[in-house]
């Protein structure tokens, strides 16, 4: 319905490559002379994808989203949605709808009127309008709330109304700006699952902004990690976690130990690296130059390391260290281990499987660290 308002030639849709449903080409956004909020970003988002923009506050996520919605115009570059350039399409004619961070529920309208707000152009009969609103209310599990005032809703309910108000227009793309940020933890986790189910059910392309890496990992098909206006890496959650291509992404998603190292050679497609603290080991190179002698960062996640209290219990090749700090969390323990020649203690996460012997290591105790053969990866040193 609203899609026809954009006046797109019907042939263009068929010709669009579904993996380039949203095509962001070298888009830059400047505010004034000095602020570059989004810097030469190129992204392709597929039709029906749940795509997240992840990054710390101030990295330009909202600005990018607002350019998709048409509230800001790119300073450079071009945005295409479903094959159609958006530059000349005003915000109120775009095939997108937005769930605002503040929800932006109209305070002078009740829930039903809020949801019906965007249906005016469709010129529905009273009965049809009612049916659409009721369907939307049912979808967000707020049936019977149509005549509630906007001020009689809880945070979670407002969030749902904002969602229904956008989805009832059946947009091609739904834009969500940190929609769960204001909810408490339990509600947020519930909504994550509900949102994901809704997206799969409706098949609408979602572009979801968040600064919460866990949220992005659980919900998304693909994630673009942003920093200071740039896109650092675009991948599915698994690849992003297991094979980050730069130290910044590796550090932002989950926790990661970094050890300085130098390439000494190659062996079976893997690099042989001399790493501080660990000695000479082999590791998979994810990105960057691996010429002999190149400085690299060896990155290894805490859960891919193992800890033992005696040399006998540790596998061959384990290195000795001393516990700097130990946090007992019940199901697991976090240890921070000082290795000789390493500045920062190395973090190790251990599952407390054995009731008797695990989870009791104290600060100052000597320990032996080992790691999974495929655990460490190599990243270019900054």
């Amino acid at each position, binding site marked *: 319905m*609203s899609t026809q*308002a954009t006046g797109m030639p019907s042939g263009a849709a068929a010709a669009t490559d579904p993996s380039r449903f949203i095509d962001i080409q070298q888009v830059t956004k400047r505010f004034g002379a000095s602020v570059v909020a989004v810097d030469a970003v190129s992204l392709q988002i597929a039709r029906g994808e749940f795509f997240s923009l992840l990054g710390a506050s101030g990295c330009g996520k909202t600005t990018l989203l607002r350019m998709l*919605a*048409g*509230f800001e115009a790119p300073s450079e570059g071009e945005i295409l949605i479903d094959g159609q350039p958006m530059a000349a399409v*005003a*915000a*109120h*004619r775009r095939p*997108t*709808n*937005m769930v*605002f*961070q*503040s929800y*932006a529920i*109209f*305070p*002078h*309208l009740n829930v039903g*009127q809020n949801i019906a*707000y*965007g249906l*005016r*152009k469709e010129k529905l009969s009273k009965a049809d309008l009612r049916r659409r609103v009721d369907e939307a209310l049912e979808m967000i599990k707020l049936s019977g709330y149509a005549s509630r005032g906007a001020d009689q809703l809880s945070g979670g309910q407002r969030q749902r109304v904002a969602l229904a*108000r*956008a989805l009832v*227009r059946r947009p091609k793309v739904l834009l969500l700006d940190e929609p769960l940020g204001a909810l408490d933890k339990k509600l947020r986790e519930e909504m994550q699952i509900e949102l994901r189910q809704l997206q799969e059910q409706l098949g609408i392309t979602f572009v979801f902004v968040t600064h919460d890496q866990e949220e992005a990992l659980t919900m998304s098909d693909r994630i673009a990690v942003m920093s200071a206006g740039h896109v650092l890496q675009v991948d599915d959650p698994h690849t992003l976690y297991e094979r980050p291509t730069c130290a910044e992404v590796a550090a932002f998603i989950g926790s990661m130990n970094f050890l300085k190292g130098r390439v000494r050679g190659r062996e079976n497609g893997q690099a042989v690296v001399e790493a501080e603290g660990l000695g000479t080991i082999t590791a998979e190179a994810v990105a960057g130059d691996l010429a002999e002698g190149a400085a690299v960062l060896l990155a290894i996640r805490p859960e891919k390391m193992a800890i033992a209290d005696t040399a006998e219990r540790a596998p061959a090749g384990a290195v000795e260290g001393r516990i700097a700090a130990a946090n007992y969390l019940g199901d697991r323990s976090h240890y921070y281990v000082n290795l000789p020649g390493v500045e920062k203690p190395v973090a190790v996460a251990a599952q407390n499987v054995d009731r008797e012997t695990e989870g009791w290591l104290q600060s100052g105790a000597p320990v032996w660290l080992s790691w999974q053969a495929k655990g460490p990866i190599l990243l270019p040193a900054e």
Partner: protein
Amino acid sequence: MSGGALAGDTAGASAQTADGWRSRWGRLYLQSEGIRGWCLSAPALFVVIAALAVPIGLLVLFSFWTQDYVDIDTTLTLNNYQTIADRTIYLTVFARSVGISGLVTLLTVLLAYPLAYYVAFDVTRHKMVWLVLITLPFWTSYLLRVFAWKIILGYDGVINSGLAWLGVIDEPLSFLLYNPFAVILTLAHAWAAFAILPIYVSLEKIDRSLLEAATDLGDGPLRRFWRVTFPLSMPGVIAAAIVIFIPTVGDYVTPTLVGGPSGLMIANLIQTQFSKANDWPLGAALSIASMVTVTLIACLFVWFSKRATEKIA
């Protein structure tokens, strides 16, 4: 219950020092919310009673008395109200007052709204400076401004001499001054600041993301204004309208100075009763009648505009 405690204490100890009374009173004061409430509101209550309730009470009382050539007959009658209902001059003038005030209110709000809108939405820096500049003319005396309009609209005034100098007219235009038009123009100008400020505040308060949401949901600028901006600014418009309408009905300076005979308003008649005609009871009855009517009109207006705003969306 604190009353009961007090009674018991008084019975128990007969020799009370002043100190004892003070602490007892202090305890009572802290315990009873009612006593505290009355004490704290006493000064305000006194002012309201002395400055508002008593004069209005007197006015009501006067309106039921009658003027007996030299004396005032203090038997209570409805004669004055009968006179007002019978003699059409009062109704005509009253209707005219309400009509003029309505037009003044409408004109002022229509003029003030775009200004307030401009400052609230299009000015990004130094909004305060803009507001001060806009309201600067209103820092001068109201009388001065009325006289200024006399000079502008008068027979030898700015407009007439300007037009004559340009050769547009041979003879000064006489319809500019001393009629309802002059009254409306002068008052609309006089009230502008009182309309701009409340409207500005209500516009400024509107969350900008609501406007973006309206755009996002398919509204162009005009429709968005009509469906979101305007309804949300309604409290400011209502406040402005009330603040202008009520004192305008009772204004007598402007009609006296620029209104001429055809621009006379109800306050001029009331003033005449209290001075030249020397019929205070009738003046009081006229005052009460117009107060009641104006209150009713204001309430109706508020109720109606609230309903209308609900309908818009």
